[in-house]
């Protein structure tokens, strides 16, 4: 625990933690706002803008006796500094006196603002930031009312400088606070922004190749205290005061980034509420105030013209639009005939309410076939046992702690965890990254471990004897499934549990296992009894009726075959895809933006998202569609709201006991509070309104006795003569319709490719940039070869969901053959 000291701010004593930043201490403990531009609590102070000048003094002590020197009236004597000092570079200590309201301080603020505005274009009426701009706000509060600067004396600079595809820079508006530069440097670790020239001409530049194209670039537009940085997506899109920020949760990936959807009635979209932008919502337990560019820009699918708008049913072999009732009738008929030979498969964006509705329907028909998509995941029980303890914060990991990442490319699979793991390493934590290939996180690792195909379990099984891990004060283990078969993934999770138990880390705060699941609600699916293994069983022998919710099962050959084998397929989907094409009844469902619901992130935090826009076409929330189907089979009418579904869920699922919508809507206090309101720190992150969610405790936390289960690695896939093992990879930017609908991202989504080691490429006659055909398990894909020295020999690394066509999603032996390029006829 840090010790507490007493400081005086404007004559009032406050107890504050010793060594805290003065700006933060004043804001948090005294409610005193020392105005700032460059300081940001997520980055080191630099003292660049001088906005935070305060009068600083110290109590005087007698040198000989150490006694406080007193004024005649008995008050302590204070020696004030001769000049003002920057609050943001001052840390508090005992005996400190601060004055923030003297005439001198006010004059300094006025002067700094006048200076900053001397070359500012004052184009607030057309500026995206106008209305939520720290420069505007602080000028109103502290600035001079008028300028002494002749407008013609202003220096004019470029106003539309693209920094990469997604971010535009307005050089005139920049106030040179370096927040963006420091974000790239300190937070992201990608030094591609810097200042050029000096004085009034100081400008942000990037001359790197590739330029400013990290997965986090949008965050700079949030923290920029002026409108100098704007996104290609939102630029000139709306005025902040027209926007209503609706709390939500990212539907992309396992982190569960807390976000707000900035909504506006939009004429161009036919006068309906639309998402104009996505901003982070502060949750220090989850994503702090950062979101990935996928979350920020990947919202366009919600209003994509490709969305399913009406129910479809097969008529004379053709899928034909029908009334919802007729579609439900046909589906119910098939279900009645099937008895209990019914299987259920839920995909990555399926909410807890939807899973619960499926579970109730399954119980009603007497089926226990509850499947989760993708079918590639192992048993999740270890995560429930030793999953990261409730209340843990990755932001607290540092010196003496260890972070172990196994079989995951965190940057691609969970960008926010990449940032947090990297920053833990920056703070001194040991970061060990183990994978079968090089990933970006290796750059920040204190140690990297390279194992061969099938070697992950062996490595993790032996890790308990590793001093760094065994002796770490806190240990967090991320486990992904890159390069693993489904069973191997389950064994690897078990090995991670063994490690945490053996080294005594299980069940303690800031310790535990974080499974890097593929979906926003994969964890919720597991919690409600859905399993990837059950899906695999259904793919082996298909039930009579398959109900598929938000899962493109046909993206694998086995899945496609199962859809063919089932007598009747009911697909609930956002988009028409290969799966709906094989379905007998297709029912349109709503996206996360059109309905209430909850997702459980991979740290077991159950989080609410709220209705932000109207339904697309005749779509309904999946839980309601399932309920209507159940009603036709004799169940009660569907519940009237998502809240009631959650109520029933919490009553029947023990892990979720007490997780009512009102409880989930409670917001934990965020320190320091960085939201738009109260707005003190500047920037467009939303306050935690709408709730910060609740975590269910892992078994280890309840002091249950945990035992180590010996593990054995299953046989690894072997490539036969002339074959390679094709290893599917998860990439952040893919061509799944939920992301590809964002046209603004197209420039960043790669063409379908496979990465090959130079020696394999040479042996196979594949050239860099040439076309190759991959074939395995009866499926084939046509992609571009990328010769990559970091690809392990003998493996073909295949990013998923780039090429159209079904392909296995687990490592598989297959052929890679160059395709003769068709010679263009003239």
């Amino acid at each position, binding site marked *: 625990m840090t010790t507490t000291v007493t400081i005086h701010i404007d004559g009032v004593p406050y107890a504050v933690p010793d060594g805290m930043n003065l700006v933060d201490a004043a804001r948090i403990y005294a409610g005193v706002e020392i105005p700032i531009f460059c300081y940001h609590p997520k980055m080191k102070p630099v003292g660049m803008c001088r906005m935070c000048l305060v009068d600083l003094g110290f109590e005087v002590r007698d040198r000989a006796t150490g006694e406080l020197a007193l004024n005649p009236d008995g008050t302590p004597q204070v020696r004030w500094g001769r000049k003002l000092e920057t609050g943001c570079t001052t840390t508090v200590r005992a005996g400190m006196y601060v004055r923030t309201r003297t005439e001198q301080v006010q004059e300094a603020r006025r002067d700094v603002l006048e200076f900053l505005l001397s070359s500012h274009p004052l184009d607030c009426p057309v500026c995206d930031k106008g209305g939520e701009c720290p420069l505007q706000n602080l000028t109103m509060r502290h600035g001079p009312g008028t300028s002494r600067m002749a407008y013609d004396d202003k220096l004019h600079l470029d106003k539309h400088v693209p920094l990469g595809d997604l971010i535009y820079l307005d050089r005139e508006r920049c106030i040179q606070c370096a927040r963006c530069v420091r974000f790239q440097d300190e937070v992201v670790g990608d*030094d*591609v922004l810097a*200042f*050029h*020239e000096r004085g009034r001409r100081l400008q942000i*530049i990037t*001359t*790197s190749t590739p330029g400013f194209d990290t997965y986090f670039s949008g965050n700079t537009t949030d923290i920029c205290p002026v409108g100098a940085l704007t996104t290609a997506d939102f630029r000139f899109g709306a005025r902040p005061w027209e926007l209503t920020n609706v709390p939500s949760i990212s539907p992309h990936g396992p982190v569960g980034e807390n976000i707000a959807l900035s909504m506006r009635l939009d004429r161009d979209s036919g006068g309906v509420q639309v998402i104009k932008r996505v901003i982070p919502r502060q949750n220090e337990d989850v994503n702090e105030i950062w979101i990935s560019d996928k979350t920020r820009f990947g919202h366009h699918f919600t209003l994509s013209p490709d969305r399913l708008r009406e129910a479809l049913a097969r008529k004379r072999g053709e899928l034909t639009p029908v009334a919802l009732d007729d579609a439900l009738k046909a589906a119910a008929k098939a279900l009645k005939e099937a008895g209990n030979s019914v299987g259920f498969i839920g995909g990555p964006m399926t909410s807890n309410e939807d899973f619960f509705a499926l579970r109730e329907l399954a119980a009603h028909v007497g089926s226990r076939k509850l499947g989760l998509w993708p079918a590639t995941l192992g048993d999740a029980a270890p995560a429930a046992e030793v999953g990261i303890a409730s209340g843990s914060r990755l932001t607290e990991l540092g010196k003496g702690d260890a972070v172990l990442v196994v079989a995951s490319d965190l940057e691609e699979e969970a960008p926010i965890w990449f940032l947090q793991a990297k920053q833990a390493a920056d703070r001194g934590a040991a970061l060990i990254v183990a994978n079968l290939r090089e990933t970006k996180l290796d750059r920040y690792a204190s140690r990297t471990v390279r194992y061969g195909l099938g070697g992950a379990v062996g490595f993790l099984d032996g890790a308990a004897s590793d001093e760094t891990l065994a002796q770490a004060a806190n240990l967090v283990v991320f486990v992904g499934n890159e390069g693993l078969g489904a069973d191997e993934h389950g064994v690897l999770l078990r090995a991670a549990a063994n490690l945490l138990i053996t080294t005594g880390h299980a069940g303690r705060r800031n310790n535990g296992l974080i499974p890097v699941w593929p979906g926003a609600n994969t964890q919720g699916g597991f919690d409600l009894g859905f399993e990837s293994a059950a899906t695999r069983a259904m793919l082996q022998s298909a039930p009579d009726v398959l109900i598929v919710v938000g899962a493109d099962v046909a993206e694998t050959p086995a899945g496609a075959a199962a859809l063919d084998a089932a007598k009747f397929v009911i697909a609930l989907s956002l988009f028409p895809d290969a799966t709906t094409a094989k379905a007998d009844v297709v029912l349109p469902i709503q996206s996360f933006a059109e309905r209430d619901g909850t997702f459980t992130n991979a740290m077991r935090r159950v989080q609410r998202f709220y209705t932000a826009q109207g339904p697309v076409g005749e779509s309904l929330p999946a839980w309601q569609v399932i309920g209507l189907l159940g009603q036709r089979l004799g169940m009660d009418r569907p519940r009237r709201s998502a809240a009631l579904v959650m109520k029933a869920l919490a009553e029947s699922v023990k892990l979720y006991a007490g997780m009512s919508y009102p409880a989930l809507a409670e917001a934990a206090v965020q320190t320091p509070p960085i939201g738009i309101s109260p707005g003190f720190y500047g920037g467009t992150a939303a306050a935690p309104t709408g709730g910060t969610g609740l975590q269910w405790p892992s078994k280890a936390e309840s002091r249950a006795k945990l035992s180590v289960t010996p593990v054995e690695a299953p046989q690894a896939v072997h490539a036969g003569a002339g074959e390679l093992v094709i290893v599917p990879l998860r990439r952040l930017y893919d061509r799944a319709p939920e992301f590809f609908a964002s046209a603004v991202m197209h420039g960043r989504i790669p063409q379908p490719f496979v990465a090959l080691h130079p020696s394999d490429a040479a042996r196979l006659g594949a050239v860099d940039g040439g076309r190759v055909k991959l074939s395995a398990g009866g499926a084939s894909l046509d992609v571009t070869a990328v010769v990559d020295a970091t690809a392990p020999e003998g493996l073909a690394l295949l990013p998923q969901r780039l090429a159209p066509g079904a392909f296995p999603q687990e490592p598989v032996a297959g052929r890679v053959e160059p395709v003769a390029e068709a010679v263009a006829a003239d």
Partner: protein
Amino acid sequence: MLKDKYADRIEKIFAKYADKRSAVMSLLYLAQEEYGYVTEDACAEIAALIGTDPTQVRSIAGFYTMFREEPKGRYWLQVCTDLPCALRGADKFYEELLQELGIEDGGTTPDGMFTVEHVMCLAACDRAPMLQCNFHYHEHLDMDTMRALIAQWRAEAGVLAEAAAVGDAPAE
């Protein structure tokens, strides 16, 4: 590539610093000497040598006025017109110099021989008017001495050009 051509010099430069990144200024001088100005490729080369990002190298080149970021004349004249020099007539001298060469502030003569800029204090206020030509100071100037210098530089350049033509450039 600097790395191949000046391997020895680069090694000596690195030997002077505990951290390779500290060598960035010396390497920028080297690049400027080699290419005439700090080219985009030079920034990338230097970044690779010291293990940083090219943007960071460009940023440093941009901060300091002694690095040229665009091709300039062979003789780069930086005339101080700051207040103390101005009091000794430097601003008038500067105007006359521009007229003599027939160019504008910051311009380059059509033959690529001279670039003329005005700069802030060069710490030779007592010897104004003064200028810095390719990092050498010329002080107590008036237009007569200046004309002589211009003629001298033109002659020198002629010699250099001839020597280059026969493949035998004299050492600097």
